């Protein structure tokens, strides 16, 4: 059983993550590399910004007409011999998938990487029912052995050092010689390839996610670099793909537009090694491929997001760019968020999926620096959506009373400009005098969170409004 940390304890989780030197080294390297590489990756495709705009248009149009495109997809999939299963929530999806596995007489299930399967805790359910479930993505396989969850959308095992992974392989692959070399990623990859080949061949059912559903053809699009997604959907007799409703796009051309920004945003590649568009089950005359194809279509809270401001988050293509760019993710790591999705996307999706009462601290964990929105290929206004969750948490009195009172007081004053200016002038004068000649504070009541790690500069030269009236720029 893989247990998530508690989202309500984000601050404690993050503090523990800060003390983990291995994790900090891995996260700093990820963020530095991503930052340095981005100008080259983006600059190489002059049409990148235009493609982002187009991708936003595609998704906005699709979401506005979602019922039509899902019904179109369903009809074309049926034409290709595929079966569609509509599921409202995690428990319906789990039951549906187990039922398909049972009818197929399955004992071994091979799995491609799927965040939706994490969302519905599919593996635990299938294993509890007696099935042998094997993750085939290298990172996910390592995590399954270690009973951990992914900490990044596209680099699931980013939190682990190679020495930890080597130890895991030695612990679990006990049939192999104890002195085999496992020092480098290449030798570990080789070992995983060897072990997983047996599983691919033994699997009766293959389960994958889907990066996109194409309405006009009834196809799923699955992208991988390892090729595990393709072996998973081809070798077993039955292929089950799981996707949530917002994954659909109208046409093949629309999928191609999104492909041009997906890998670029995720890993900096032009395109992943394998991009497979699969349509239904094996055709007459095909020498290989699954005899049955099932698409499990899941809502799991998406229809609640469709109405209103949160619709924008349904454009997400799970590239992980916001995570790689976020300073809070870079300090806390993905696990601290306590849900399936960490980082800015997790701070917006977490309260929607788990309930705002169980995840309200996640949108609090942001300095609103805007990095996430700047890199998001789908231009999702992540900081704005986090702010909306903060409003909900405030209105439902979920956060600390002290914070709520302070914000309410500030709001009350901000609506009375004369009073606000007067108060600001008094406060600034007081802080300026108290700051004295040093001009900064080493500690201050109510500001220990700031002053514990750095000094607070004392204000200089009056309020912004006063200086504006005098025709001087602040800081001049």
């Amino acid at each position, binding site marked *: 059983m893989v247990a998530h940390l508690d989202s309500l304890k984000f601050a404690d989780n993050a503090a523990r993550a800060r003390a983990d030197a291995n994790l900090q080294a891995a996260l700093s390297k*990820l963020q530095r590399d991503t930052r340095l590489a981005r100008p080259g990756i983006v600059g190489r*495709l*002059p*049409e990148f910004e235009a493609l982002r705009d*187009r991708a936003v248009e*595609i998704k906005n*149009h699709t979401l506005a007409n*979602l*019922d*039509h495109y899902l019904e179109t997809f369903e009809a*074309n999939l049926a*034409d*290709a*011999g595929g079966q569609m299963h*509509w*599921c409202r929530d995690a428990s319906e999806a789990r039951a549906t998938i187990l039922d398909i596995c049972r009818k197929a007489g399955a004992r071994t299930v091979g799995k491609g990487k799927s965040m939706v399967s994490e969302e519905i805790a599919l593996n635990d359910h299938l294993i509890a029912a007696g099935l042998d479930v094997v993750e*085939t993505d*290298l*990172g996910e396989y*390592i995590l399954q052995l270690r009973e951990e969850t992914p900490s990044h959308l596209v*680099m699931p*095992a980013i939190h682990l*050092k190679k020495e930890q992974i080597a130890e895991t392989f030695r612990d679990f692959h006990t049939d192999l010689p104890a002195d085999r070399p496992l020092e480098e*990623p*290449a030798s570990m*990859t080789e070992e*995983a*390839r060897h072990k997983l*080949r047996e599983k691919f061949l033994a699997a009766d059912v293959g389960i994958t996610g889907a990066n996109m559903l194409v309405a*006009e*053809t*009834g*196809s799923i699009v699955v992208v991988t*670099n390892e*090729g*595990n997604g*393709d072996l998973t959907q*081809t*070798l077993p007799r039955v292929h089950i793909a799981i996707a949530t*409703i917002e994954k659909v796009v*109208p046409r093949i*051309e629309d999928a*191609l*537009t999104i492909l041009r920004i997906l890998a670029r945003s995720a890993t900096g590649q*032009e*395109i992943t*090694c*394998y991009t*497979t*568009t*699969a*349509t*239904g089950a*094996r055709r007459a005359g*095909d*020498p*290989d491929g699954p005899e049955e194809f099932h698409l499990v279509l899941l*809502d799991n809270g998406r*229809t609640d997001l469709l*109405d209103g401001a949160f619709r924008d988050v349904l454009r997400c293509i799970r590239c992980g760019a916001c995570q790689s760019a976020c300073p809070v993710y870079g300090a806390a790591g993905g696990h601290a968020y306590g849900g399936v999705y960490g980082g800015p996307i997790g701070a917006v999706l977490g309260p929607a999926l788990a309930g705002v009462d169980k995840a309200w601290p996640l949108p609090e964990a942001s300095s609103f620096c805007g990095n996430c929105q700047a890199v998001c290929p789908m231009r999702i206004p992540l900081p704005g959506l986090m702010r909306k969750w903060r409003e909900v948490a405030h209105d439902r009195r979920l956060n600390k009373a002290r914070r709520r009172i302070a914000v309410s007081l500030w709001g009350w004053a901000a609506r009375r400009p004369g009073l606000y200016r007067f108060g600001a002038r008094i406060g600034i004068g007081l802080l300026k005098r108290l700051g004295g000649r040093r001009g900064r504070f080493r500690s201050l009541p109510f500001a220990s969170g700031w002053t514990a790690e750095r000094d607070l500069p004392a204000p200089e030269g009056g309020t912004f409004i006063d200086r504006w009236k005098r025709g001087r720029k602040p800081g001049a």
Partner: protein
Amino acid sequence: MSARDDILGRIRRATGRAEGAAVPTPAYAATTLVPARGRGTPVELVARFVAMAEEASATVDRVAAPDDVPEAVAAYLAGENLPSVAAMAPSAALGALPWERTALTLRQGAAGVDDLVSITPAAAGIAETGSLMVRSGASSPYTLNFLPDTHVVVLEASDVVGAYEDAWAEMRPDGETGAALPRTVTLITGPSRSSDIERTVTIGVHGPRRLHIVLVGKADGETT
């Protein structure tokens, strides 16, 4: 209420749409946004295809005519110290090549777990990213692209196109949907890889460790 009706009903309420209401053609659909690198003369596109494929760690060998393919494949396998036994796609065009000029042992059919080398056709080469488009079907088993350690692809230079859209247009000339499409259409860009361990790029995870492209003939207008 069925889950289907429930979900569709919730979507319609959230989007304010009536069941079966017409969907306006979106303005964006009037144009296709193809990057400039996906456009060019056939000569430019072939050169870009080769450069991009090599950047993705594929190797590319060029031969003048189809009859030169068998010897080029045999020479590649010998040069890499690879087995001279291969599983080949049961395509008529590949089968008609003069393989008897080589010492290769060939079997035509889907890949088995013991096959170390495969030889397949590709439907297209795509210049913008150096990708190959392969389709599943009776003459091109899908497993040949993934199970063997070494994947050799025979591609006609005249089948190199600029952009993904161009290759897809060939794949569905009449806008094929559903069962009229091959079960799978895959873009392959370089050999299998992962960077899941400390973000170190490692080649050959579950799919082939080597992707070798034999490009046959010249692009239209190519002189040398």
